[in-house]
């Protein structure tokens, strides 16, 4: 199988794994586990961008991070343990789903404060640029944030600093049309995000966030630009939050025609159809893939549920260095 096809295949499988993982979380929530912010429908953004990064790069993300983490190689079992508040989670259960970081993977400083990711990312990029700590030459930072975060003032401050200091920072706005229970068109003009970014004078690209190949191509271009110039770039990925803001959420406030239209353009379905059209996969192949990810998730669930609770005597560990 040529490299290009292997990559396309791998993208599909990773998207399936993210989806299966999040569907499992949805089920867990129904039986009493804490709710989560799923990224169902946005898998192409995570997979396309993360694949364009190197091991030396860092990722800063937010509350809707499962895709970024899994695309980066995070183990579903340790993620799930974290969501369930167990010791084997990436953060020993202290984070829960909302601020999972996995330093070993270069996924650092996740914040569930909308805008928190944008406030810290320039500092991570500055450290990369200055060769601090365990950074490697040429390393960049990708910061994932939502259309809602683009409304926060810190968006403006982060862009200006990154431009002015020429930081190796890739801004990735996953414009999923929603900001919790508010449609983004209630909060900004239609083309606002790219227009705002352009006002800062850095390279801005807007692509279909449901087309994993398009996302990847754009991300690869942006990453190349950053490595070549040392300065920042901006990517707006148009996508859609297919499920509610946080589980459970009846989505009563969602326009069903809009939702339906986007479901037609589901990123996994699109990628499946593309591979099928190219003759790279058939129904049986797809079913096998799905089975594989489902097994991974089932094993992960067993692991997470078997993982111990932290004990109360560890309550004050890690508050201070």
């Amino acid at each position, binding site marked *: 199988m040529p490299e290009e096809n292997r990559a396309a295949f791998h993208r599909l499988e990773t998207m399936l794994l993210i989806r299966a993982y999040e569907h499992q979380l949805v089920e867990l929530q129904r039986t009493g586990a*804490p709710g989560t912010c799923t990224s169902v429908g946005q898998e192409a953004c995570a997979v396309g961008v993360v694949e364009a990064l190197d091991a030396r790069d860092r990722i800063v993300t937010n509350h809707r991070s499962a895709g970024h983490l899994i695309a980066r190689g995070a183990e579903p079992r340790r993620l799930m343990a974290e969501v369930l*508040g*167990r010791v084997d989670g990436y953060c*020993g*259960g*202290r*984070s*829960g*789903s*909302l*601020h999972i970081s996995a330093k070993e993977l270069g996924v650092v400083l996740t*914040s*569930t*404060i*909308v*805008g*928190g990711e944008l406030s810290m990312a320039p500092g991570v990029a500055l450290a990369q640029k200055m060769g601090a700590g365990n950074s490697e030459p040429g390393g960049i930072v990708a910061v994932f944030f939502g259309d*809602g*975060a683009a*409304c*926060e*003032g810190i968006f403006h401050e982060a862009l200006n600093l990154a431009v002015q200091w020429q930081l190796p920072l890739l801004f990735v706005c996953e414009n999923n049309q929603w*900001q*919790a*229970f*508010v449609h983004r068109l*209630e*909060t*900004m003009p239609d083309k606002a995000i790219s227009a705002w970014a352009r006002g800062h004078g850095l390279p801005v690209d807007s692509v279909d966030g449901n087309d994993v190949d398009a996302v990847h191509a754009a991300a690869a271009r942006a990453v190349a630009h950053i490595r070549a110039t040392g300065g920042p770039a901006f990517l707006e990925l148009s996508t859609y939050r297919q499920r509610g803001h946080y589980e459970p959420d009846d989505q009563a*406030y969602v326009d069903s025609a809009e939702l339906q239209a986007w479901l037609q353009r589901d990123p996994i379905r699109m990628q499946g159809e593309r591979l099928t059209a190219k003759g790279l996969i058939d129904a049986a192949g797809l079913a096998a893939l799905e089975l594989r990810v489902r097994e991974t998730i089932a094993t992960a669930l067993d692991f997470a549920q078997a993982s111990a*609770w*932290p*004990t*109360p*005597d*560890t*309550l*004050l560990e890690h*508050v201070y260095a």
Partner: protein
Amino acid sequence: MTKMTRMTVEQAIHQALREEMRRDSSVLLMGEGSATKQRDLVADFGAERVRNTPLAEAIVAGTAVGAAASGLRPVIDLLFAPFMAYAMDALVNSAGKLRYLSGGQFQFPLVAMGMTGSGWCVGGQHNHNLEAMFVHAPGLKVVMPSEPADFKGLLKAAIRDDNPVLFFTDLGLLYQEGEVPDAEDFIVPIGKAAVRRAGGDVTLVGYAKTVAVCMQAASQLEAHGIAAEVIDLRSLKPLDEDTVLGSVRKTGRLVVVHEASGLCGIAAELAALAATKAFSALRAPVLRLTGPDAPAASSWVLEQAAVPKPEAVLEAVLDLVAGSRRDEAAGKSRAHDQDSRAHHDQLAGLAA
């Protein structure tokens, strides 16, 4: 007889908003999702007065400040208390100070709402009881009720108040039910605590979720022959010093219980008040059972370990009463030092 309706805290808040919006056309409601979540208010009062905002707490709060000084009475929903970190300049530097710095030219009748507290396993960036920060800041009032009727009555009082009021909802109480007066003129005055249970041996003070903790401890103490008085602060600023000090002067023992960190928290303020103004009445050390100086963890076990529990209050009070009675019997002027209780300060929950 007051007509009452049984409802949850969430419903009581909604009723207060509805009544005040009906009563006063200058009241408006703004927040991320305020209109989405309260379509009925949009229907009744119009989209101009019930507004979804961009996701930008600083401008939501700043806009409330500007509007309040210009004849409106904004109520803003900032969702979770830690998000107020973005609204700090508007709340602390503008709303709290510009009345004074302008020599009284402006007033800021606004209410800023935020949820917080343990129970949802959301971790410390959502669950952070930072009400004391606003108590420390000048020019603001702060309330944090414990039962549906007070949520209604205090929110109405806050909306009518000409000062900026921070209104905190302990999210563990959101679906708690209680009887709420129907009357549209039902107001709970800001600055008045409620004595939830009378008793002469020890004063237990809590607010929000810890009022129930104190009440449970008080029931258990009864079995030990100890009569606890339980005070629900309701208002954190202004504090009802008279009610607290009056009780301490009667019981001689003060135990303050809250989820927020103890350091420079409300319990510190009350302990200081007692040590200054009710000193001669004190028969025993003042105890604080508070959350630790740590962010809230998500994991249920750790979240709960950080929260003061009735058992810890019970144990603390039993020790306290035994200690001070022993000392008094021995003719000593005061109870033994309470270093042994130090851990309560930081680790109230662990003892449970």
